């Protein structure tokens, strides 16, 4: 076991850190969370800068136009971006982390040439059309229908939880081409242009009142057969292949942010005189120990991916622990605020020491509830851990 980085890894870090130190301060202020066009512009312009500097598609294979970095370099990359408070992947998420890698492996040479460079350069934004109102945890129950008509598929149905659909150029879409009830064996993967007729986007407000997600209503949308990635009815496998790109780094940014969050909570406790309360210190220390452990687990999962080339099942273990921890962390923050935690607008300390950070803590708290739901509920994650790692029988 070795936690020191190699000279090559350190060199990569130094180069990246120098570049970030140069460019991050030149960036303008981040747009408001609700201003999707501005967010698109901001995120894609940042992606363009990454591209120009040779950091776009850090984990993509070189053949696909990426940097082909090792899992450890990818970890260093995410660490440094977080350290520099660089912009998040934002609206480029689906393209860079999901659709792009899928096309890189499963697409035809033409599809790769057509779709991959615009993702890397920040020219095209993707969204995801997987879940449906009746197919959430049970994704294979999806019913959005695609019927072949000459050189096109005619798609009808609806999708849900589609992030930033309003500003996306393309949608990675899972459709049913097999018979009803064909489940995993009748699904096809399509790249759907978002400007096609028949697509209606309806924003879905979250409990934090953000319009993070949208519903997509598809009414006879025509998608060229050439936009199909993989064979007809083979879309489930095509999708699963992408998951094998996960190298244990999915939550690096969020984890490092949570560590910073805990330090902020501690400093809040000190400012409002609650650090003398043993219970507050105890809870802080407990969360600190768990965050350290999850950072260790991250490095273990990355190391495993680096050795074997495939992701371990450690991701589910990590996610279970982390999403639950996030909720406790957020709850501690909210409780420390007391009645100041009821206000969305920023409050100032009475001793003139400035804002107390209640807005941010409240956002964290509201956001924490989706952690045990999104990307596989904790219940589903426990099934995965129990059945695939521990070998317990399906029931």
């Amino acid at each position: 076991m070795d936690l020191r980085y190699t000279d090559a890894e350190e060199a990569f870090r130094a180069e990246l850190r120098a570049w970030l130190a140069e460019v991050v301060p030149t960036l303008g202020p981040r747009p408001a969370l609700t201003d999707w066009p501005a967010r698109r512009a901001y995120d894609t312009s940042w992606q363009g800068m990454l591209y120009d500097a040779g950091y776009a598609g850090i984990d993509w294979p070189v053949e696909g136009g990426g940097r082909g970095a090792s899992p450890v370099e990818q970890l260093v990359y995410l660490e440094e971006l977080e350290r520099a408070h660089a912009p998040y992947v934002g609206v480029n998420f689906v393209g860079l982390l999901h659709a792009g890698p899928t096309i890189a492996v499963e697409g035809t040479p033409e599809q790769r040439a057509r779709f991959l460079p615009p993702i890397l350069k920040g020219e095209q934004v993707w969204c995801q059309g997987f879940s449906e109102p009746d197919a959430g945890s049970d994704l294979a129950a999806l019913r959005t229908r695609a019927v072949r008509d000459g050189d096109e598929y005619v798609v009808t149905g609806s999708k849900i939880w589609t992030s930033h659909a309003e500003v996306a150029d393309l949608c990675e879409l899972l459709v049913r081409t097999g018979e009803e009830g064909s489940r995993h064996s009748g699904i096809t993967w399509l790249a759907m242009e978002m400007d096609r007729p028949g697509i209606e986007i309806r924003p879905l407000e979250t409990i934090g009142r953000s319009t993070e997600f949208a519903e997509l209503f598809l009414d006879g949308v025509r998608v060229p057969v050439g936009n199909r990635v993989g064979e007809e009815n083979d879309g489930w496998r095509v999708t699963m292949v992408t998951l094998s790109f996960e190298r244990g780094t999915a939550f690096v940014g969020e984890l490092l942010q949570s560590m910073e969050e805990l330090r902020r909570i501690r400093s809040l406790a000190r400012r409002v005189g609650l650090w003398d309360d043993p219970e507050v210190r105890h809870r802080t220390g407990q969360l600190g120990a768990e965050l350290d452990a999850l950072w260790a687990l991250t490095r273990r999962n990355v190391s495993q991916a680096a050795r074997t080339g495939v992701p371990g099942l450690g991701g589910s273990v990590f996610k279970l622990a982390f999403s639950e921890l996030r909720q406790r962390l957020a709850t501690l923050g909210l409780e420390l605020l007391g009645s100041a935690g009821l206000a969305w607008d920023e409050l100032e300390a009475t001793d003139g020491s400035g804002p107390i950070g209640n807005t941010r803590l409240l956002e964290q708290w509201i956001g924490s509830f989706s952690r045990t739901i999104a990307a596989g509920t904790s219940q589903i994650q426990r099934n995965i851990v129990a059945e695939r790692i521990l070998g317990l029988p399906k029931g």
Partner: protein
Amino acid sequence: MDFELSDDERSLADGMRRLCEGRFPMERVRAGEGRRALDTEGWSALAEAGVFSLRLADEEGGADLGTAAAAVVFEELGRALVPGPLAATHAAAGLVKGAATGDRPVGLLRRTPPVPGDPRPVLVGDLGSLGALLVVADDGVELVEPDAVGGAPVEGGLDPLTPLWRLEAVPRGTPVGDGPVAEALWRDFLVVEAAFLVGMAAVTSEMAVGYAKVRRQFDRPIGSFQAVKHMCADMLVRAETARAAVHAAAVTVDQPDVGDAVRAAHGAALLAAQAAEANARACIQVHGGMGFTWEVPAHLYLKRAIVLWRALGPATRLADVVAERF
């Protein structure tokens, strides 16, 4: 000894539920999202129904009912998530002229020693709509005229149905009661607010169960999966134990020889607040992605639970009182 609801208590609950269904259906309550001022029409209806006066004697315009009856009524109000300073106005009915009739909505605030660095106190409720502000300390209660209080409305509170004010300074007011009065006022406030919270915990439990019966995944209702089933069972356990605690606290206020009403009130408030929060969280989880949407009202129950809890004081303080008096 018969700790079941009496027929009178049952019909009181039924009546209140019907009133709430008519006056405060969820659509209408939600239409008030973001509103600051009190919905005076709804408020008057509640006053007419005796929500504030019911414990006063006949000759004071009340119905001469007990705290147990009040608990039953507030459970229903909590189920419907009715907004406004209901518990404070009810608890103050005997102390503040005009509270019992609803003419003077009352705010309640505990005076706590200022903490350096701590931002100004937040009043749960709309100062502008209040007819009186009662400030409670260990040694007595003061009545402060809302006009005399410096402050400003908070733009955007956690709960869209509960306005907040940030107070600059709360001046001393007119003493309206001594230590024992303060203790009784706070005790009664805890009990009825706890009843309100228990009603909320019951609703989120029922919402989760209802959804678990109809929502299907993997060709089965999700309620047939033990993970969901057991979450629902735990929700019922929390709601029912808290409910028993609240009812016992209420009865103990009415029948002081059966126990320590102050301890019972603090314990009930603690469990009711925990049940309301935990059940709302579980309700969101059972609803999956839908639970995280504004549309499904689970979050309103969660936010109200937090907001009301803040006015009761932290769990540690509630628990401390129980620990000392157990």
